[in-house]
């Protein structure tokens, strides 16, 4: 199974954390820590393009992190999920509730 790999950087007014590999119970806290490290940034985007798998732990992480950040007037969104990942995001309603975007520009504009 593909190990989790995180790469980070600033892109078009947002801090983008790119997730490669599998995002599940075993490694979700790494992403959580990465999101918390940039708590002061106005827009944090989690790019899932190279991510092959997410489970409900990841969903819980996204929902909780988004709630925390919104309470501080900050944004968290997900970018470019691939098919398996997109299905989980759709199933849980994250896609319909403004958490998923196809580009940095779209996400920043929505925030």
């Amino acid at each position, binding site marked *: 199974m593909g190990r989790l790999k995180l790469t980070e950087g600033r892109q078009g007014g947002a801090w983008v954390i790119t997730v490669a590999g599998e995002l599940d119970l075993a490694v979700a806290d790494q992403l959580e820590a990465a999101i918390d490290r940039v708590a002061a940034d106005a827009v944090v985007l989690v790019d899932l393009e190279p991510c092959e798998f997410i489970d409900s732990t990841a969903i819980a992480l996204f929902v909780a992190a988004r709630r925390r950040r919104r309470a501080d007037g900050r944004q968290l969104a997900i970018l470019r999920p691939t098919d398996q990942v997109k299905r989980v995001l759709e199933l849980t309603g994250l896609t319909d*509730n403004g958490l998923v975007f196809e580009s940095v520009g779209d996400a920043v504009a929505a925030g």
Partner: protein
Amino acid sequence: MGTVAIVVLAGLSAALALILVRASAARARMARSFAVLESVAAVGERDLAVESTLQEITEALVPAVADFCVIDVIVEGRPLRAAVRVGPGGPPGIEEGLSRRTPSLPVETVVGSVDAPPVARLRRDLSEADLEKLAHDPGDRAFLRRIGMRSFVILPLRARGRTTGALTLAVAWSGRRYGTETARFFRVLKGRVSLALDNAGLFSDLGRAERARAEIAETLQRGLLPPPLPHIPGWSAAAMYRPAGAENEVGGDFYDAFPVADGWMVVVGDVTGRGARAASITGQARYTLRTAASLTGDPLVALATLNRALLGRRDSALCTVAAFTLPEDPTQPVRLAVAGHPPPMLVVGESVVETVASGPLLGAFEDVEWSLQRLRVEAGQLLVVITDGVTEAPGPRGRFGEERLRSLLATTPSPVAVVQRLEGAMHEFTEGRFVDDAAILALARTADERGAGADRSFGDLHPLVA
């Protein structure tokens, strides 16, 4: 010239005298160390009660090798201050202060983990900056400063292969210091103290307390496990619930079936997370769904009520649910609603189709809605609900996956066959290593109109806990 020689000689003899004094001091220290180790060992051999053992050990250590010492024992993952002894000459109030004080180092630091086994920690020269780090708050800092600690050492105590506590020794007002030369002494001391406390039965007492706690937890958990499914007229059913860990029987997955107006409601859900917190949310989810659905018989009301209940919690609690009603009147359709859960599948011969689009999961969003799907299930057709622990189960060849699930479900003749087939396939795929909870529930409409003589496999089959 002669004067110079005399001065030099005098200097040399003074230096020699100093060396001799130091050597004899070192010998004396070593003798003292041995005496301490011997008396600690002797305490261990005397079959004393825990209280007396703690008292005699600390007496052997203070003031011989420490100005004060503290023994913490780990009970249920938390440090418990078992003994404090303060030697003569220190400032007043130290003993009371230490007895009440929370340890500076988090318990994990002392206990260690799989990656970081417990290590003894020695600090030779304690600085103001160190105090700053050790202090919990300004009051605590003032207290630590008042002690005037110069060096300390924390020794993890182990018994029967696990860390059971820590012994802290410190020097302050006596002017002594712990240097690296004391490392060997401390290593031996650590073993002797551990052994003496183990002999006194301290750690087996802790073991008993933990067993008692496990028993209570088990009893509470039994109340949260899925109950045997009732007999539902006109339907046959089978279910499986398999928690990930044997030590933690209540996982995040659950199912339930109960009577509502005009029929029955069946729910299958999955609470995010593990352990006691997940179990408490599972309990809340099941009883909230039951209450809301019993009152209204409406899956949508059940979902909305649980959504509000979860949003109202202070912690983030998420849950996915598939809920549906089975009508008493066989001419009426099944009504389904899904919140963030894999949609129930309808199996008609070789065709396996999802029955309803999922709405948002519960506990995440306010002002959301779910849609209700009406579905006619004919005799011989199967309705199957799983949790994501089935499709996401990892094996040496990737994840179990939806394709495998669908091909296994196609042409399955009965609910019992669904459960048996899926369980067997999962076991084979994961090679018996289950990492997540999984639940499967399958229903089939029986041929007879009102359920007379219906298959009663519901009650017989449950629970199939692997």
